[in-house]
């Protein structure tokens, strides 16, 4: 089962973690993979903690449960570090990617001695620079692609351009900004 990659997303309602997990599933699908993308539905409210999941594999995926021992974790909002056990079950051969401006020591304080790789990215700064608004999911999507290497940067950018053209058919003016957010994010993920 070593070819199965499992990813868990932690975000807050309204930040687009679910959408990001579905976009990642789409992008991986387009590179020929078998995929799953699904959120854990609870009471859906703006700001409430939400979890979403991805499975990506070269072989058909039959398992239909939530993910308890992910290879990768994405934290879309660092205020969750205080209340959610984000490294629960996270494999030490894997990695966690956090949207944060906190310094390395402070982030590590919340990660319960997690031994795997820890990455951070300032998704707010990137989003504001590229889009003029705070949509953290686009930079975080690029960040997890960079860290997990489920596809190359080029494959990912090519595919996302197609997705955005489709998704934003009625507002093409936001496509360039979103592409810029992805490119900036791919180049600013930082291991701490």
């Amino acid at each position, binding site marked *: 089962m070593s070819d199965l990659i499992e990813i868990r997303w932690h975000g807050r309602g309204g930040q687009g973690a679910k959408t990001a997990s*579905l976009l990642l599933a789409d992008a991986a699908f387009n590179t020929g993979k078998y995929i*799953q993308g*699904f959120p854990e*539905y609870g009471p859906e409210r703006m700001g409430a903690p939400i979890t979403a999941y991805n499975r990506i594999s070269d072989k058909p995926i*039959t*398992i*239909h*449960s939530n993910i308890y021992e992910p290879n990768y974790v994405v934290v879309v909002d660092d205020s969750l570090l205080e209340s959610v056990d984000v490294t629960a079950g996270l494999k030490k051969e894997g990695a966690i990617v956090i949207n944060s401006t906190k310094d390395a020591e402070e982030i590590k304080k919340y990660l319960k001695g997690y031994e795997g790789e820890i990455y951070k990215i300032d998704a707010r700064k990137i989003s504001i620079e590229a889009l003029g608004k705070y949509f953290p999911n686009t930079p975080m999507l690029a960040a997890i692609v960079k860290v997990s290497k489920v596809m190359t940067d080029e494959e990912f950018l090519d595919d996302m351009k197609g997705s955005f053209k489709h998704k934003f058919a009625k507002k093409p003016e936001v496509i360039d900004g979103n592409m810029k957010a992805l490119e900036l994010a791919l180049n600013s993920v930082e291991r701490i």
Partner: protein
Amino acid sequence: MSIRERLSGNEAAAIAMKQINPDVVAAFPITPSTEIPQYFSTFVNNGEVNTEFVAVESEHSAMAATIGAEAAGSRAMTATSANGLSLMWEMIYIASSLRLPIVMSLVNRAVSGPLNIHNDHSDAMGVRDAGWIMLFSENNQEAYDNLVMAHRIAEHKDVKLPLMVCQDGFITSHSIENIELIEDDKVKTFVGEYNPEQYLLNKENPIAVGPLDLQGYLFEHKTQQAEAMKNAKKVILEVAEEFEKMTGRKYSFFEEYKMEDAEIAIVCMNSTAGTTKYVVDSLREKGVKAGLLKLRVFRPFPAEEIAKALENVKAVAVLDKSDSLNAAGGALFEDITSAMYVNKKRVPMVNYVYGIGGRDTKSDDIESVYNDLAEIAKTGEIDNPYRYLGLRK
């Protein structure tokens, strides 16, 4: 060539409906099946289907409208979940007794109360004696394939019974997964035209639908329904064979996964079967002879065939995603134990009620069942046959 896609289970069901292009769809939204009529109404709006979409004010009316449409001589479909099906209950029995081959997508969810929107099979189990054919689906692919086969089974002249295609709410209905779609024209040819022998709008041959049916006749009419349900077994296999020729995908009453030499086996339905396959694979790597019988056709119930498939194992666990609250065991367990007894197969059997109200079923949970079965196979002892799986301590 089939079309490689990625869709949620609800999208897959809606696409199947689009390709079937029924005359009438009547539906009322309810989580987690809401997206099916939502997507379908978009197809109607965009002119991609010729269907008359009836946005009714309740599920009772949704079923009543599909009954009216089918009785008139047209092909009608609907979709619902949980309390939506509960509200249809009166009309569910009328649909089957009028022998109207309506096709429903049932996205399984716990029936209230207390209020819960998540998956279990209590909605489906509540109508198991209503005279509907009931097909269960492991994933989006099977939800789609079962719908493509549905009308051919339901409308067959030896059957003429309504049919529901079940899939697990949220777990498959809202999960995006790979799927192989069939080309539109192939589906159209496969499903074919609906030409009922008798229908209300045929002025050449006027008929009455649903008159009073008292002591002198109701019994005979019920046995005709029962006979039709028996006939459905043959038709289900014939349609599956034709479907396999078109797609290469094989369907039967159930799927036997690594059962040839299995010593311990789990029987379950819908998405849990996928998780169980994953566990069977990992146990097989350790030399454990585990197998799975995934039931697809719950009504008609293939009693004899199941008994034959399970006759050589040393212990069986039946997983019920609904509790019958009868102090004896879940519905699937009782059907299977009865099938074994009547067919003179003596295999130790145990029941696990699991996944109630959306409780996640982990691979570890399934593995613990196989561990229990290994112990039962060794000793033959079962202290309590009616158990819970995944219940918080």
